[in-house]
């Protein structure tokens, strides 16, 4: 599978070129166009590895309940994938490793990658971000999206990242949720709230914008909910 990104970083879309018989699993609703002879099937799980609990977990992760599988019948067929919000896309290749992806940032992966959901416990609940992270495991290419531009932050030792800015990170990294400032009061007043403290060696992919902040900026201009 060949992945090509266009119109980065604001209006990015990905063009996947598939070989005969190759298939790719994508987040429901991500397809914007494709060759007419690409087969599409919709399931609640990755082929051959499904379980109901996994599906429900993924739903909580802010991902869709369903996954689409695109299967190419000839060499060179194309699938174009987009993202719901303005933002960037990035690809990476996994080599028998796992990547933890923020709920909502997963777009697509090759057949050799397993899409699972990692339960991160109640400490994640407190962060106000999604409860779940999607865990991508195996070998193959993966495609992620972000809100705003994506940038890499290598970690060797320790790094603190605001929870709203995390797109993905290597599973080799340990993380703890903590407060940004010296005291809880300062952390909350400073608008940073909870942050993730990563420890170890690996990479964290960050997004330039925070959905929650942008949404909050829009709130005063929106019409109130009825009732």
């Amino acid at each position, binding site marked *: 599978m060949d992945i090509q990104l266009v119109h980065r970083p604001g*209006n*990015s879309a990905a063009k996947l070129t598939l070989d005969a018989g190759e298939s790719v699993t994508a987040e429901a609703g991500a397809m914007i166009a*494709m060759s007419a002879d*690409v087969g599409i099937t919709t399931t609640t799980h990755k082929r051959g590895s499904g379980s109901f609990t996994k599906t429900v977990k993924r739903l909580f992760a802010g991902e869709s*309940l369903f996954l689409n599988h695109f299967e190419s019948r000839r060499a060179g067929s194309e699938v174009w994938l987009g993202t*719901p919000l303005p933002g960037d896309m990035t690809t990476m290749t996994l080599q028998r490793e796992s990547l933890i992806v923020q709920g909502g940032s997963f777009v697509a992966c090759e057949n050799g990658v397993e899409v699972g959901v990692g339960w991160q416990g109640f400490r994640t609940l407190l962060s106000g971000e999604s409860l779940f992270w999607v865990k991508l495991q195996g070998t193959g290419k993966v495609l992620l999206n972000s809100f705003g531009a994506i940038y890499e932050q290598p970690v060797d030792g320790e790094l603190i990242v605001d929870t709203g800015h995390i797109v993905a990170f290597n599973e080799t990294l340990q993380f703890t949720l903590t407060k940004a400032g010296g005291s809880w009061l300062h952390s909350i007043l400073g608008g940073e709230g909870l942050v993730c403290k990563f420890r170890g060696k690996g990479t964290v992919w960050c997004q330039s914008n925070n959905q929650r902040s942008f949404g909050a900026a829009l709130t005063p201009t929106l019409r109130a909910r009825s009732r």
Partner: protein
Amino acid sequence: MSAQFNVVLSGTIADGHDLNSVVSSLAARFKIEVARATALLKGQPSVVKKGVDRATAEQLCAAIMQLGAQASVEPAQAATAVASVAAASNPQPQPEAAAVTSASRDVAAKTLTPDPRGLKFSIQGQPDYAFLTVQIPANQTLKVEASAMATMDTNLAMKTRLRGGLGRFMTGESIFINEFTAQGGPGEIGIAPGAPGDLRHVYLDDQTIYLQNSAYVASTSGVAVESKWQGLVKGFFSGESLFLIRCQGQGDLWFSSYGGIIEIDVSGEYVVDTGNIVAFTDGLSYNVTKVGGYKSLFFSGEGFVCRFSGQGRVWIQTRKVGPLVSWVWPFRPSKK
């Protein structure tokens, strides 16, 4: 679909740029010597990248334009690969030996100072915030989508006309198209489309292009703009409007998108999500169908798609407004 494209540097720089600074930024950006960069900008077209696919070529082209140099994307085998609208407006056949180069140069010229028969214009801020500036010659008229005018010279007179018939009224699109006439001398108009996104220009030569109902930006007076009933079934299931805008005739046409624009040359069949269609040429017919089986229809998140068939070009946008709106929804304040 695997057509190859070249990136051609026209050798000239964009208006408002300083030659020296363009040379140095070009040299820095592409890690070439200043002397070579200077040679590239001597006014002669030169191919700077050969045989890449369209997206790569366009990306490079955009990068070059950003630095202030003029560049264009053209098919690698100009003689055979020129399809669709741009090609159809090619002039008469050239002497054989020069055919390939002159044809490709022709395409290049068209993207820069569009068609010699058309108006002079420039598009800035692509692909995120495209903005159009058109030079209207004396006593000529430009049709512009209502409320899209951002700036204009004082000698431009505006007239509001009901265009496109009742259909446009029902599309929810404004039924008014403003006509700007340059009185007593040429004038310049700046046009900003409603949504942040991309913009494209096409010179119609007795051809027809269909636009999604909010894509229309501007056209010259030789282009007839009208609503076209899609049929209840097609319109209803597409989830979009029941009408398309049909533009036909002779002249310039500009249209815009929400998100970036991707051009796809279709020969045979191609599937596009109904919400991502911006425009398509007349040679294509389409059907609204479900994608995959019934399970996919309800749960794939794709719903109905448009299946194009025939020969022609489709312009698609990378974003849809719907998902943004549903994302904003939870952020509404709650009433006390």
